[in-house]
């Protein structure tokens, strides 16, 4: 297994390099260094000289990929790509274009993202699986029909509606939680409760339907028939036997997103004024801060690859037949 993991880690390098190049190209297709300079220098009294100075100061006056005027290795190293992107492989995020330390910001902002994402995922998973198993339990009854219909209706509604509706109902009409905001430490629970609840409710439609499909596949198998023939009660058949055997596809969907919980949710963080990494990324895109954008894309890619790796490892834990080699 160790050999497999090492091999996967080595595969990750060209993958990350490719992502880096792609991010770099996409960013600079849309924005030129001149655009970035103007954005940071403001809209008034910006002279061509000050734009040039800004670019020179921050190393954006170099060619993008190939420095034809330089000699030797500097043809490669004297470029924006080399100087701005390759340090990421050592997790040196550097400073944002407005001068803040990106590593420090990420360290600070990942906790609010996690405070929302982790309970939303765990409780949401519990609820989704429970509802899905109940639907399977009541299959071929009117309860299943209406349950699935409700799920379809719930998944057809936009997340934004759940957020605004939830804020309106719980925060404004019932006045039970703050409408938005965040606090540190234990006090955070007051602000986290509503977005987590909304996250769970918004996800239950699609989640329950997906898991129901997985469980329905399992309940027709021989071992289930055997379990029933043994006289096991149906809840036990479903929650002990079927659930366990359906874990592989569940893990595929869940473990892969675990590392991505760090990167936060854009809409939720924005509407609830949660200072997480989701809003950090979108702010950077709006402010054309390439330093932050490349760092967040890189971080997201690393975490995604890590998630895939964890998924593979988790297979071996839930299914003894799986061997990584």
């Amino acid at each position, binding site marked *: 297994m160790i050999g497999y993991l090492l091999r996967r880690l080595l595969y990750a390098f060209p993958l990350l390099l490719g992502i880096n190049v792609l991010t770099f190209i996409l960013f600079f297709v849309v924005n030129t260094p001149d655009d970035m300079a103007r954005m940071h220098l403001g809209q008034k009294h910006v002279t061509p000289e000050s734009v040039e100075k800004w670019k020179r100061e921050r190393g954006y006056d170099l060619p993008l990929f190939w420095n034809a005027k330089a000699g030797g290795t500097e043809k490669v190293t004297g470029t924006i790509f080399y100087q701005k992107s390759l340090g990421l492989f050592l997790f040196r995020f550097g400073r944002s274009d407005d001068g803040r330390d990106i590593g420090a910001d990420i360290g600070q902002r990942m906790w609010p993202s996690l405070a929302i994402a982790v309970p939303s995922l765990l409780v949401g998973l519990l609820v989704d699986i429970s509802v899905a198993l109940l639907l399977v339990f009541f299959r071929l009854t009117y309860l299943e029909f209406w349950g699935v219909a409700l799920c379809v209706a719930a998944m057809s509604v936009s997340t934004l509606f759940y957020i605004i509706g939830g804020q309106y109902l719980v925060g404004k009409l019932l006045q039970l939680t703050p409408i938005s905001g965040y606090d540190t430490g234990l006090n955070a629970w007051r*602000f986290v409760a509503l977005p987590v609840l909304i996250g769970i409710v918004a996800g239950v439609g699609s989640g329950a339907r997906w898991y129901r499909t997985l469980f329905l596949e399992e309940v027709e198998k021989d071992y289930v028939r055997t379990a029933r023939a043994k006289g096991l009660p149906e809840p036990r058949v479903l929650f002990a036997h079927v659930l366990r055997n359906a874990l592989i596809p569940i893990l595929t969907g869940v473990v892969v997103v675990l590392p991505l919980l760090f990167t936060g949710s854009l809409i939720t963080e924005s509407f609830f004024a949660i200072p997480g990494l989701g809003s950090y990324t979108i702010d950077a895109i709006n402010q054309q801060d390439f330093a932050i954008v490349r760092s967040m894309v890189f971080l997201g890619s690393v975490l995604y690859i890590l998630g895939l790796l964890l998924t593979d490892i988790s297979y071996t834990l839930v299914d003894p037949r799986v061997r990584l080699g």
Partner: protein
Amino acid sequence: MPAPSFPWPPVRASLPWLGFCFWLFLLAACGDPPNNPYPAEDNGKNILYTSFEERPKHLDPARAYSANEYEIIAQIYEPPLQYAYLKRPYQLEPLAAAELPAVSYLDRNGQPLPANAPEEHIGYSVYDIHLRSDVRFQPHPAFAKDEAGHYRYHALSPEQLAQVQTLADLPETGSRALTAEDYLYQIKRLAHPQIHSPIAEMMAGYIVGLKDLSERLAKDFGSRADKSVWFDLRPYALEGVEIVDPHRLKIRLHGKYPQFRFWLAMPFFAPLPWEADAFYAQPGLATKNITLDWYPVGTGAYMMTENNPNRRMMLVKNPHYHEERYPAEGEPEDAARGYLRDAGRKLPFIDRVVFVLEKETIPYWNKFLQGYYDASSLASDNFDQAIQFSGQGNAELTPDMKSRDIRLQTAVATTSMYMGFNMLDPVVGGLGEARAKLRRAISIAVDEEEFIAIFMNGRGIPAQGVLPPGLFGFVKGKDGINPYIYDWAGGEPRRKSIAEAKQLLAEAGYPSGMDARTGKPLVLYLDTVASGPDDKSVLNWYRKQFGKLGIQLVLRTTDYNQFQQKMLNGNAQIFRWGWNADYPDPENFFFLLYGQNAKVGKGGENAANYQNPEFDRLFERMRNLEDGPERFRLIQEMQAVLRRDAPWVFGLHPKTFSLSHAWYQNRKPNLMANNGLKYLRIDGKEREEKRAEWNRPVYWPLPFLALLAVGAVTPAWRVYRRRMRSTAL
């Protein structure tokens, strides 16, 4: 077979509910309205709550230039002058200065000239600034000294640095008196090669020696091996600034530049102590985001004690703030409006100001209605809920707002939004009469009144020229209308008819929108920034306006970057843009059409690339005159030239609408003064009462929802029971 228990699936499904109920129990146990987003211990305190949508980019006074940055640093840094809070038209008064600066003139040989010397004789202007002697810097670790008199935190060891996460981790603070050297240090910082002050280039053209200093600094800084080490500016001389004594400095400018007095009211010219610069330059602090750009050090009414731009920023009263009293003079109606109730009382009133991150308008508005924000602007989402128009067309609050004792303040911004013609364009540009007629015809057709009504909820007034109301030279009423576009009828300006516009168009060579020479329809191109789906209806509206004349309008939408690039290259034909005043002087608007400021080739702010020698001559005479009859006359002549040539469709001046609660007082709109927080007052007790009244949690639906859940589960339970009791056959 006994029926198996059905224990855990419903219990699991109920877990969120149980958790929710437990959490409600906790909330109820707090004894505070559970929707209160602030700590309970702050209830009733003298705190102002406001918000920020995105973190300010810079809090360094040499770099900051946008409104959201000024909202914070203007409370902390004190330039020599400020705008009188209540007086209109806007006028300057001393802040850190003891009096308004005395301005004298010298010829090119440095010999004194009389105050009324002709401009062409003036080689230099000298601003003589006397500072107050009772001004001290806020408490700050940069000033802390040990027993031996050495700065305690100017050489932090790696071990000490490891303990520091925020500025508050350095417990000892110090202070010292403000001196003229602090102003000199800041002016030198404008030329610092690493700071990129937005006004550095411009000021280098005015302040004697600043350009030379800039070059010397760039050379010396560039040759340093380690650029992260503090670059001490004190040894560098600046020819144009003379320190007469610790409380007096003279700033020498090239030529005559009366607008310099307005710059002296902006944070660019606030004092900066070298100790702060040296302190923040220590390696290791920047990696913790402890920099001068994030932790300002000033002498103002407030000081920053918490700066977490990811979540919250906090200002508290500066304990060393100098003597300043609430003004006793304002506009005639200020007493009746209650703005003079605090006259003569010591400033500031509010103890703490909390800026909370709030990115969306809907939650902000709801929290404002709950009393958790003290004031709110009006977004289109909530406009109809807050404002209704009376029979006379006046905006007033809806009954719901009135019942909450919410106040409405409106003010016309010192802003001009316009649609410009690229005067270099072969179709719409040029100074000939035919082209002017084409532009005037379009100006008539683009119905700004309709635009304001449809897209701005009536929040704006149509522009009659370049100048917004409130500036010297603006004329109200019949004499102030644009006679090419409006007639005066019934005591108000009335837009000329489309028939007249068509007539102009025909005279311009495009009868019914067809080119008389080629017989082809006239096709024009509008370059504009479109950022979202809302823009579509606006752009369609523009197409319809041009369509009234038979002109086909092609929309070329782009992002702001590309738009700017097009403007720089002169590739746009017609465009939309706007300008916010830097300072309340007509020069700051007319320079937008001065030939030497053309965008193409010169990179200036004259985006229309309008170059009319007649206008330029008038501008050059007007810009440096003191306000008076001569200047007024020149301004009217300039307006007349611009109205005739019509390089812009003079669009509109936006009107700001702002709401505040009754407990938030002294809030008079002042679009020039950024340091207004010190005048504001909060009645914390009244706010607390209102919050308690408006925020009574409603618990009754919860048991109802629980019953509903039980009702929903019952059929499931019955099916379950039936199934468990049934046999296989």
